[in-house]
């Protein structure tokens, strides 16, 4: 079985030059950095906050905060990792504000019922995503990932959707590398378990299952 291929990195050759120019007051250079990463920040923010308006605010506030604090960026890490760290904090702040009844922390050791060994081990159809049309598939994927605890969701999105390395994810989230690995494993297994309901191989060809409704986030 082959391993997951990492995403190809965005070229970073001129990135430091853009950061230096922006530090010197070149707003045009900063705009180039915005163009480079706004889609990523928006995606991360919406995955964390699960709210479109909040995600829009996070994009604006994260870039403005980055701009105002560029002098603190020392260049030991990639600019993108530094930006993601700011964006994640902004997103978590909004999530907490919207859901004050829940403790939202990346440090929490979340115990869930699904932490045990996988229960669903039926194989999937060869091209599971083709069993559904695009809108159905999007709903399944959105609802499934929304059901994960915020701390698992965030690690999965940074590592597996955005393609950050384990080290970069740990740095962006201020977590240890073992903590990132542990959350990533549990996030992947839980998503797999939940998606199995929709994607497992069926004898009947028309056995589509409707996406479940209801927010089960914790």
């Amino acid at each position, binding site marked *: 079985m082959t391993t997951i291929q990492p995403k190809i990195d965005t070229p970073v050759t001129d990135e430091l030059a853009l950061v230096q120019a922006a530090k010197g007051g070149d707003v045009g250079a*900063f*705009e180039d950095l915005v163009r480079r990463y706004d889609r990523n920040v*928006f995606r991360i923010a919406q995955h964390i906050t699960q709210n479109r308006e909040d995600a829009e605010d996070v994009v604006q506030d994260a870039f403005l905060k980055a701009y105002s604090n560029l002098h603190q960026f020392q260049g030991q890490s990639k600019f993108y990792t530094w930006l993601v760290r700011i964006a994640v904090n902004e997103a978590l702040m909004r999530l907490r504000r919207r859901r004050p009844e829940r403790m939202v922390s990346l440090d929490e050791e979340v115990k869930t019922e699904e932490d045990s060994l996988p229960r669903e081990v039926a194989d999937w159809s060869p091209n599971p995503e083709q069993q559904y049309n695009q809108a159905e598939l999007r709903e399944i994927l959105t609802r499934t990932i929304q059901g994960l605890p915020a701390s698992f969701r965030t690690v999965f999105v940074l590592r597996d959707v955005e393609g950050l390395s384990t080290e970069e994810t740990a740095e962006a989230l201020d977590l240890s590398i073992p903590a990132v690995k542990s959350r990533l*494993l549990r996030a992947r297994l839980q998503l797999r378990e939940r998606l199995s309901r929709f994607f497992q191989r069926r004898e009947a060809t028309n056995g589509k299952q409707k996406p479940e409704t209801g927010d089960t986030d914790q």
Partner: protein
Amino acid sequence: MKCAEFLNELTNYLDGAIDERTKAELEDHLAWCHNCYVVCDTTKKTIEIYRDSQLYELPEDLRTRLRTAIVSKCHARKKAGPEHV
């Protein structure tokens, strides 16, 4: 190797972050344990489906609006000086 040990190494295995010896042990387990093979294969598919999904794409008109707002505020902050944070 037991299934629980395999699962503990699953993330490292899928990420290719293991030494050759451990990899050989894991693949030996996969060769005879169908359940772990299915879990491994479907976990890999899970990752690929999310990676290839276009969830939460930023629409171009919203993208332009956000960028315009950001750049305009950057100019305002630049005028206000570096102390204005």
